[in-house]
């Protein structure tokens, strides 16, 4: 890793804290900045620094090392430690890079969708949300996870509610998200309480060690695992705990939707992995049972029912939101296999899906920006009205379906292979059947866009009006990335294998 030389020694160690602290502090400053442009520039600089830092950390772990950052100089398990290892650096990088892209996209988008007075605080809330997500991924302390989980959630509620100036349903959606999100977080914290009762420590690695010594622990540990699973399940929109997701994605400002869709559920899923496989361990009966039957079962249910619901939506954002529920199902299925291959596949899909969904929601945001379109029937003629954006949407859609030479194909290939290796032939058919459902709900949008004439207003055909460059660039970066992964997926698969190595799983 020759590139690592560009990153100072200091950053390789302190980067873990920097990536969290910087957006947190700057978020607070952003909230009181007088000018929105200033706030935007601050945000851009901060997330750029985070991205570079995250990239450095990624290189460190690709080099096969892991870092334990001692917050406040206290040694773990007493102090809070931040852990950088193969499991979380890809997610850290994903979150910060997506934050960077959405910030670029936000320049036109936020102006269109958020009231002028609220824009600077909006960026503040966004930065704090980024800090929360990064924090919950980076921290090695279980209670700290809860704190950051809530930091990110609370800022997310605010961000979703900001959609109210565009669509009042954002308020109801944010409220629903708040109730369910808080219940989820509370369940999680109850679980942590039980875990603390069982082991007397909050350091995740230490809990893991103690539980190993206790060989899985007593019923208290089981209850703890149950609560944590439900709590995180709510956060990651595990079927049937996904009720908050469609509304939140559909009515939030486009900016927020993109960021949420590509990072929030992913970070929660990362935590689920972390807790199920490293804090607890699949060698414990109850964990294995939950992972094998619950994750797989609910994953498959999500894939089928989420895709079916996606087909019947009249709002394009809702279609994609339900599709996200289904895609989380794919990840859970991979995780549910609990084999090294399955974990790799689930993790790879986690990364790929973030790229794909990000591109798709970027495109939807651009449609709204130019023509105020969200309903599927209004897609008529978009192929002519916004060829570049619709092109990006089409390529992203194909990737979601899982067409070869796109990222989605890599995910499905890996998942199917892992399923067969595990001896789960039926799972392959669920995967493929839901791909066919994806053809239907994506195809419907694409066909409407290309095969129906643009609408007429006052007898005049609506003219071509492409999205601004600041929207097209991040959109096409993700589309290009999706195709790059489809052609050469080595680095993503390598990240997946690295994560699977940390997780272990059953052999």
């Amino acid at each position: 890793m020759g590139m690592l030389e560009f990153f100072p020694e200091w950053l390789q160690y302190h980067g873990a804290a920097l990536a969290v602290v910087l957006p947190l502090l700057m978020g607070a400053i952003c909230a009181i900045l007088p000018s929105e442009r200033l706030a935007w520039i601050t945000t851009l600089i901060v997330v750029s620094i985070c991205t570079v830092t995250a990239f450095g950390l990624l290189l460190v772990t690709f080099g096969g090392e892991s870092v334990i950052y001692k917050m406040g100089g206290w040694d773990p398990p007493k102090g809070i430690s931040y852990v950088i290892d193969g499991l979380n650096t890809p997610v850290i990088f994903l979150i910060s890079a997506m934050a960077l892209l959405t910030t670029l996209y936000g320049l036109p988008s936020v102006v269109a969708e958020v009231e002028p007075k609220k824009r600077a605080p909006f960026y503040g809330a966004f930065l704090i949300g980024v800090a929360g997500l990064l924090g919950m991924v980076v921290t090695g302390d279980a209670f700290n996870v809860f704190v950051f989980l809530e930091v990110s959630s609370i800022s997310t509620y605010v961000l979703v509610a900001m959609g109210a100036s565009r669509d009042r349903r954002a308020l109801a959606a944010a409220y629903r998200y708040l109730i369910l999100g808080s219940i989820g977080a509370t369940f999680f914290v109850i679980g942590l309480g039980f875990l603390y009762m069982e082991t007397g420590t909050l350091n995740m690695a230490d809990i893991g060690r103690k539980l190993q010594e206790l060989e899985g622990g007593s019923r208290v540990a089981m209850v703890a695992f149950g609560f944590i699973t439900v709590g995180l399940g709510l956060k990651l929109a595990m079927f049937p705990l996904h009720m908050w997701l469609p509304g939140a994605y559909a009515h939030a400002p486009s900016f927020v939707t993109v960021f949420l869709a590509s990072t929030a559920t992913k970070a929660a899923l990362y935590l689920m992995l972390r807790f199920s496989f490293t804090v607890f361990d699949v060698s414990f009966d109850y964990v294995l049972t939950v992972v094998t039957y619950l994750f797989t079962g609910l994953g498959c249910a999500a894939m089928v029912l989420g895709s079916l619901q996606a087909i019947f939506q009249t709002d394009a954002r809702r279609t994609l939101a339900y599709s996200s529920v289904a895609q989380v199902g794919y990840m859970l299925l991979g995780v549910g296999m609990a084999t090294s291959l399955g974990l790799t596949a689930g993790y790879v899909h986690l990364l790929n899906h973030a790229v794909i969904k990000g591109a798709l929601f970027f495109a939807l945001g651009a449609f709204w920006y130019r023509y105020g379109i969200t309903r599927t029937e209004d897609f008529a003629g978009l192929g002519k009205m916004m060829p570049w954006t619709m092109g990006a949407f089409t390529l992203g859609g194909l990737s979601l379906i899982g067409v070869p030479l796109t990222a989605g194909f890599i995910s499905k290939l890996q998942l199917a292979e892992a399923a067969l290796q595990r001896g789960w032939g039926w799972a392959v058919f669920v995967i493929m059947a839901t791909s066919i459902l994806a053809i239907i709900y994506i195809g419907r949008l694409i066909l409407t866009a290309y095969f129906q004439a643009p609408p007429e207003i006052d007898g005049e055909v609506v003219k071509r009006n492409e999205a601004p460059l600041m929207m097209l660039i991040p959109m096409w970066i993700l589309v290009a990335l999706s195709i790059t992964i489809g052609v050469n997926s080595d680095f993503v698969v390598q990240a997946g294998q690295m994560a699977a190595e940390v997780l272990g799983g059953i052999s």
Partner: protein
Amino acid sequence: MTPHVILRVVSKLLIPLIAMFAFYVQFHGDYGPGGGFQAGVILAAAVILYALIFGLDEAKKAIPPSWVRIGMTLGVLLYGGTGVVTWLLGSEFLSYGVLTPDHPSHGQHYGILAVELGVLLAVASVMLAIFYAFGSRQPELSDEDW
């Protein structure tokens, strides 16, 4: 608004006491129960009481909302800034020991003081901000319609 004279007199007596108590809790947090969180809430309670008795506008004159907003940020920055200083001194984030290298426990003392002060500022400001935000909304319906 002309509040009841008893309330006015009693509150005038109480508010300084409440503020004093807040600072007691704040600084005694080192040795006993207390700290920035609790002190912040108590401090905010003093202002809120003032607002309840004399009206929101009076309270806003005393503590303008812009101060509150700056207070929030300042609190967070004081907390984070302490960490940044320890960073600049070449140690981990919030590792107070480096503040006074020859006597680490003193550094810890100063560090925690700064951090708790930040917490006090932030919590008090946030509490006030929430109160102002809710209190200053103009209900577009009359009370009977609720």
